[in-house]
């Protein structure tokens, strides 16, 4: 008995079990439930336990599904590209141009200030800014840049992506900044001594060494954008759809099984995307 308790095997299991139990109860079980419900059927008032491919049939048979998924990928790809460039630039500036640690911390905290208010507020505050009679348009008119208000500023793909970039760039900045700070400065000096230009150092030394940070940031941004529905609804004026809105529409109409099926397909899509990204960079090895 005594030997059993002191065995390293058991200690290992005991140490791992709280987390395993929490994950099983609050992550694995709900996802399994969603998968199960996605095979059920629904009438107008109730959901009926069954094993039916009806929801998937309808999902894959409808051209709307494909255009909506395409649209979701479009938002994710553009947002990813823009946040990557911005995030990398900001992190590079903080890590290599700001010399004093105090300033680094201060400027980093500055980046997080917008996060002190809620997501929704930050998003909605764009609406009066970009509107037909909003600040952006009236400023441009008073400068004489345009004669008539620009319509595509609000309730368009532009405004959706703008809001996404605004909301999620910090998720790119933080992990990239973090990995950049761990880069051994002597490597940069070595590159300099070996006669590399600033740009060559950036491309051949810094970029490869920041890959894990870039990858973690990318996973954040892509999963957040692909799972979003409220930003698309508000910023497109309900005129554009992504997968999240498809799911929320179904839920509003009490079509839970159909919503579950869409959620399962979305989950699979996101997992495949992340799987492919992890193929490119082995985060564990490089951390």
């Amino acid at each position, binding site marked *: 008995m005594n030997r059993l308790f002191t065995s390293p095997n058991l200690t290992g299991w005991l140490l791992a079990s709280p987390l395993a139990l929490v994950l099983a109860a609050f992550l694995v079980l709900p996802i399994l439930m969603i998968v199960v419900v996605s095979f059920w059927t629904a009438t*107008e*008032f*109730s959901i009926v336990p069954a094993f039916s491919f009806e929801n998937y049939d309808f999902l894959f048979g*409808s051209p*709307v599904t494909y*255009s*909506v998924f395409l*649209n979701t990928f479009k938002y994710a790809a553009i947002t990813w590209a823009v946040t990557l460039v911005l995030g990398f630039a900001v992190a590079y500036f903080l890590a290599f141009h700001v010399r004093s640690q105090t300033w680094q911390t201060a400027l980093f905290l500055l980046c997080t200030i917008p996060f002190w208010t809620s997501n929704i507020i930050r998003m909605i505050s764009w*609406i*009066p800014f970009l*509107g*037909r*009679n*909003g600040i952006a348009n009236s400023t441009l008119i008073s400068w004489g840049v345009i004669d008539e208000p620009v*319509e595509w500023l*609000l*309730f368009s793909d532009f405004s959706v992506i703008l809001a996404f970039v605004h909301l999620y760039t910090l998720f790119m900045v933080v992990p990239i900044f973090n990995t950049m700070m761990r880069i051994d400065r002597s490597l940069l000096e070595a590159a300099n001594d070996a006669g590399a230009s600033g740009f060559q150092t950036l491309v051949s030394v810094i970029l490869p060494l920041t890959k894990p940070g870039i990858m973690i940031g990318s996973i954040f941004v892509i999963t957040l954008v692909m799972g979003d529905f409220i930003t698309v*609804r508000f910023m*497109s*004026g*309900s*005129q*554009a*759809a992504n997968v999240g*809105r*498809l799911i929320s*529409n179904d839920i*509003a*109409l*009490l079509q839970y099984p159909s919503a579950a099926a869409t959620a399962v397909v979305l989950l699979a899509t996101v997992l495949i995307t992340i799987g492919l990204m992890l193929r490119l960079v082995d985060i564990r090895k490089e951390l």
Partner: protein
Amino acid sequence: MKKNHYSRRTLLKGAAASAMAAAFPAPMIWAQEIKDITLRQFGTGVSNLNEVAQKVKEDLGFTLSMTALDSDAVTQRAATQPDSFDIADIEYWICKKVWPTGNLQAMDTSKITNYDKIVGIFRSGKLTPESTIAQGTAPHTVGFTSGPGGTDFVAEESGWMTLIPTIYNADTLGIRPDLIGRPIESWTELLNPEFKGKASILDISSIGIMDAAMVCEAMGEIAYGDKGNMTRDEIDRTMAIFTEAKKAGQFRAFWKTFDESVNLMASGEVVIQSMWSPAITAVKSRGIPCVYQPLKEGYRSWGGGIGLSKNLSGLALDAAYEYINWYLSGWVGGFLMRQGYYSAVPETSKAFMSAAEWGYWFEGKPAAGDITNPYGEKLAGAGDVRDGGSFNDRMGAVACWNSVMDENQYMVRKWNEFIAA
């Protein structure tokens, strides 16, 4: 009332109750136990008002607990959880879905004091003897059942009502007269290229499709058999016309919630859109001109009522009847009418409104002075006239009632395609 429990509060309550009894000789229950009764009411936010619950406590003594939900959740709850409520405050089109489940019980009209004064729309379907009955789920078609325990609908006034009507109104398009600058007379204007990028429609499928149908019919593109119960072909053609307009950039945005519609209109993003009457009021209260434009093709109308759960019996059922009689006795009607809705028994509400309010809201007369809502906010000044005029002008011009179609699921899918297009 127990003698040894007198306090100032119970005395006042007793006095109020006696005054009520004198004014409305309805069957009243004089029992201490009624104070222990709690009636659970749920419904959409529009008439689930806390002021009503407070007033019930004051006037009738028992407790009314309110739950406000959106119309989809209301439908589901009424259909699937009859034990979770005593009183359902639902719209007539929801009644069409829910009544056949047998979760509500028929109401004996002989116990309804003011039954004879309920407006014709809810009884014969006709506002005046000459009126024609509008399309869609007209309230009287789902207002009566064959008897206690009935789950069917009957056409005539059978003495057994499914819902007691409480609140209704006629909806139309809202416009910004200052930004349009010319008279608007027809539903077709919603798709007029003149308002390209400045129009909006609501993204709630069951109501949005009706507004879309009003437009297509006015354009002469589609002749509907019944706009409230379209065929698949009619749905396809309606959505095709609107999808084309959407792709051409006609719409600035779609709205789903009340405040979205207010902001779109107030900011000038949109100059013509589907709108609800209180949203117009909200825009106006910011000092921005906004008109609930009467159109020649008529209004799209809606109505709600309260139904009793099949599980109500005994004293609780008596209390529920008392509540209904109180509801129709005028105070609630006045409260609702001063916000621009109509009450089922307008003549009892008159006693709870000033002559100027009655003239403005019901008779369509120019306001004699400032018109305020029950919360004291100013809605109109002296000389203003209500958009659309009097009760008879507005409710007499209803073209279609909110409804639920036989092809509801198909319509919802088509609507989703339209939004995603």
